[in-house]
């Protein structure tokens, strides 16, 4: 048996490394995995949650004699921020109606980036609603595709009904620096939120 790395009993390798997580949300095909791939230190990986029929309750699974399962996948990447802090980025499943099935998917996240394809605004409505419902702080990032028309950000803000205090930024999800800047916009937004009194519920 290989015991390398365990020469200091009682102490583990890796010191005091901790993690933080940020969710990358948005409709199907808005570039979530592209963004994760652009900024991640590792090739994006996929992790899955298997949902048994009892917890799904979808018509086509009811009455199936054998136990059935549905799988929801998360693409993710990570960024080493310093020697003791790692940022994990999780791209949410494209079909928002399954988010609630993954218990605590957004719990403990610093916040979320909601990606929007300006050619198909409606595809991200559900993601925005879900962030609001789960009280996850977020910024809107318009992923500019080569054939996207150049809409003023304010026009998009109106169409998506995004309040003034939530940043709306444009970027190219294929670009590492641009994707990094979107994450910076989110963290700055989180800092600013903390400067204003918590809104009453």
């Amino acid at each position, binding site marked *: *048996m290989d*015991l390398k*790395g*365990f020469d200091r*009993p009682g102490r*583990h*390798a*890796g010191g005091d*490394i*901790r*993690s*933080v*997580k940020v969710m990358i949300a948005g409709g*199907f095909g808005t570039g979530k*995995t592209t963004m994760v791939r652009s900024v991640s230190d590792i090739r994006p*990986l*996929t*992790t*899955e*949650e*298997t*949902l048994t029929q009892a917890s799904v309750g979808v018509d086509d699974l009811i009455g199936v004699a*054998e136990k*059935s*399962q*549905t*799988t*929801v996948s*998360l*693409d*993710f990447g*990570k*960024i*080493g*921020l*310093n020697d003791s*802090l*790692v*940022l*994990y980025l*999780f791209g*949410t*499943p*494209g*079909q928002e109606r*399954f988010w609630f099935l*993954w218990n*605590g*998917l957004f719990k*403990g*996240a*610093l*916040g979320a980036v909601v990606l929007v394809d300006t050619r198909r605004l409606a595809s991200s409505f559900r993601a925005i609603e879900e962030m609001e419902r789960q009280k996850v702080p977020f910024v809107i990032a318009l992923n500019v595709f080569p054939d996207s028309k150049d809409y003023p950000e304010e026009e998009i803000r109106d169409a998506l009904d995004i309040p003034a205090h939530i940043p709306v930024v444009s970027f190219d999800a294929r670009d590492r620096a641009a994707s*990094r800047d979107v994450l*910076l916009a989110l*963290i*700055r937004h*989180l*800092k600013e939120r*903390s400067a204003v009194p918590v809104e009453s519920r």
Partner: protein
Amino acid sequence: MSAPRRPADPSGLERYYVLTGGRSGPGGAAAGLDVATLVVSRSGPVPGLQHEHEEIIRRCREPLSVAELGAHLGLPFNILAVLLSDLLEAGRVEARDPIPAHVAGRGPDLALLEEVLSGLERL
């Protein structure tokens, strides 16, 4: 593709049943596990462990997230969580949950946000 789907291999459930001894979800120590929770081994593998338990201990010499473990071992989150709960209860691994931006009853963690900012700025 991230759409939910039926597994291509119908025997998957039986494999998971065997791996977990029929348990469908974690209890106790592992109930709060997050995909971004870091798992770190406390000791080396010992003889007699189930193969998957040994594999987790081996891979977690350096802290590894639950999501990475799941991806490397090809196990869904809830099955992995059951295996991790065994190891947590036996004291063979420790789990560190992701640091939230807000702690209940306290304000946002500004020092943490600063640390994330400067880390990102260095990219």
